[in-house]
């Protein structure tokens, strides 16, 4: 058989029906839902008199609008309460497993899927959330869908799909100290632009990617959508299998070995053809900071805010001009001179245990700048929270002046009351710096957890590579 990519193998294994001139009907192995985008899908299902075809393949969680403060208090936001009640009712009615806001397994949907082992190599995974691309880190085909498609999956456990093109993104060499998976993906997006991946599925490869933990791979795949691609993937390997072993929904004992043998066979074959490719050298990469209003407006921490006049394309020039006005930044300002009002460590991009460990190491024994209005750590899940507390990370953060919160999407999207006020500037480990994303008029700079932690201490961006306690490979 001809050499195939991971994407092609999964695609072929999930093809239910192909017809000439029609998109392919593919089977969906895992459907993740949350309170934000699912109520209208269930309503549609009900109106049409349809049922959930495979409730045991659907998993629900409350994450977008949940409070990260005391969750035992009544929900005061009537609209959010309406969403929670609708999700609970819909799950009950259709026999869908729900991790509600009080479950010890609750957390951001893209954190809990992998950590519970619901996410596995070779699966097709969808969710009404664009950051579903996260799960591709396991060698799954995972992508975000709209509410109509949620309804479609609920009713049929399938989706009609057009096959994507594939792009191999190779990061050669070893990851430098102080440079993280977040910096890798921001560098990729900076290179290709936020629409550079439209129509593609990315596969990340190369020594630096292979050297990443599952947490790091998830960070890269998570932000793949910010480069416009449908999905990001990493071929499964020993790192993947070691992460999965023993997780609640993962096969055990002999079944695990059978599973691993199958998963191993999914990796892209040597010599498999991609439609396109991109190569980056890890030793040329540095900590990244976004300066504009989309994730492609990004530069290295040692650089300056670019001059819009330096862009050749008039469209880019105008977009940069508009972005600088919104961000309240002057061209030519060194990135390290930009001061921040708030720091947010959290989101489905960077709120896993490894992220919290890296940030804690930076702030240990120090205190946040007196000019800072707020420094927030929001673990991605309650399991991450417990794990961090067992390691004493909560204490380190608290002593450094951070607030330690309960799990949820929080200030990444600001659907609960964790909002970036208008005109204020944040260093955020989240994934989007769009206008108003963290709060109307808020100004977001995307960075890695270590960079956010260091910015909290100094009150402005600093090059984490200058700090002794920046961990990472040599």
């Amino acid at each position, binding site marked *: 058989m001809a050499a195939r990519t991971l994407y092609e193998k999964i695609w072929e294994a999930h093809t*239910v*029906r192909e017809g000439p*001139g*029609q*998109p392919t*009907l593919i*089977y969906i192995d895992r459907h993740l839902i949350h309170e*934000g*985008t699912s109520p209208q899908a269930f*309503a549609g299902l009900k109106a049409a008199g349809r049922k959930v075809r495979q409730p045991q393949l659907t998993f629900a969680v409350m994450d977008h*609008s949940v409070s990260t403060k005391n969750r035992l208090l009544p929900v005061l936001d009537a*609209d959010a309460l*309406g*969403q929670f009640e*609708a999700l609970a009712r819909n799950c009950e009615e259709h*026999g869908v*497993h729900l*991790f*509600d806001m*009080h*479950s*010890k*397994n609750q957390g951001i949907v893209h954190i809990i899927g992998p950590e519970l082992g619901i996410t*596995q190599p070779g699966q097709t995974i969808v969710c*009404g959330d*664009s950051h579903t691309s996260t799960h591709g880190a396991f060698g799954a085909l995972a992508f975000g*869908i*709209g*509410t*109509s*498609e949620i*309804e*479609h999956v609920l*009713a*049929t456990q*399938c989706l*009609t799909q057009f096959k994507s093109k594939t792009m191999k993104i190779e990061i050669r060499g070893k990851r430098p100290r102080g440079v993280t998976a977040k910096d890798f993906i921001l560098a990729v997006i900076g290179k290709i632009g*936020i*629409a550079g991946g*439209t129509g593609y599925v990315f596969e990340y490869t190369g020594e630096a990617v292979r050297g990443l933990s599952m947490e790091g791979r998830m960070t890269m795949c998570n932000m793949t959508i910010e480069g*416009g*691609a*449908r999905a990001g993937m990493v071929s499964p390997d020993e790192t993947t299998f070691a992460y999965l072993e023993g997780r*609640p*929904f993962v*096969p055990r004992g002999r*079944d695990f070995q*059978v*599973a691993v043998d*199958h*998963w191993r066979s999914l990796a892209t074959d040597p010599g498999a053809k991609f439609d396109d490719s991109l190569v980056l050298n890890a030793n040329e990469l540095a900590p990244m900071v976004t300066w504009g209003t*989309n994730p492609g407006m990004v530069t290295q921490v040692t650089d300056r805010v670019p001059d819009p006049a330096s862009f050749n394309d008039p*469209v880019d020039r105008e*977009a940069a001009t508009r972005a600088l006005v919104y961000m309240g930044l002057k061209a030519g300002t060194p990135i390290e001179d930009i001061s921040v009002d708030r720091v947010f460590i959290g989101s489905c991009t960077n709120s896993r245990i490894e992220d919290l460990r890296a940030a804690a190491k930076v702030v240990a024994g120090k205190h946040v700048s007196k000019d800072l209005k707020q420094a927030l750590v929001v673990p991605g899940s309650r399991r991450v929270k417990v794990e961090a507390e067992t390691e004493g990370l909560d204490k380190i953060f608290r002593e450094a002046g951070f607030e330690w919160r309960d799990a949820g999407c929080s200030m990444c999207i600001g*659907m609960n009351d964790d909002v970036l006020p208008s005109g204020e500037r944040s260093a955020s480990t989240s994934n*989007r710096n*769009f*206008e108003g*994303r963290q709060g*109307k008029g808020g100004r977001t700079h995307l960075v890695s957890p270590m960079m956010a932690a260091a910015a909290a201490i100094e009150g402005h961006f600093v090059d984490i590579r200058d700090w002794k306690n920046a961990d990472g490979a040599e």
Partner: protein
Amino acid sequence: MEPFIKHTGLVGPLDRVNVDTDQMVPKQFLKFLTREGYGRVLFYDWRYLPGEKPNPEFVLNQPRYKGASVLLARANFGCGSSREHAPWAILDYGFRAILAPSYADIFYNNCFKNGILPVTLSNEQMDELFKRAEKEGYRLTVDLEQQVVTDDSGLRYSFEIDPFRRDCLLRGLDDIGLTLVHDQHISNFENKNLKHPVMYDAVDVKFHKHPNPQHN
């Protein structure tokens, strides 16, 4: 879903690249349980000043664009979040067709599920349309059957579209109904694969429907 065959309407221009779905429907409006009523909040932060007063600076607030139903946009329209609230708002506001050089993937898909036709034209063609739209009352006809965009001064741009998507839109087909025609294929696939120990045994029934959420 309302079929889209041919539509003639007033043109509204939105001359910005990379308009993301957060701008179309900001987060605070993602908490409702219905698909209707989002037209009022479309482009909320650009469109309104505090107190929900229309911002005269925002182009679509100009009286001459009131009632616009054909939206001119720029590259990578609809990037970011998968929220279908974005096309719901566009439709509810009154737009039936969007003309742009490119779209973000998920948004593009979502348009077809809601009877909105996203037409892809070249940058040069879009430049020309933006120029022509400076004339007050400029109208375009978007004909999906013929796959052409025309105005009454002889402009005629043909466009490409996937034939399957075109057919679904022309007939206003229900996607789910269409898939369920192949129910036997789905059942066959499930019979063959759902018992596959590697792919599916991982769903641990012990975790299913536990009465006490604290023990999930």
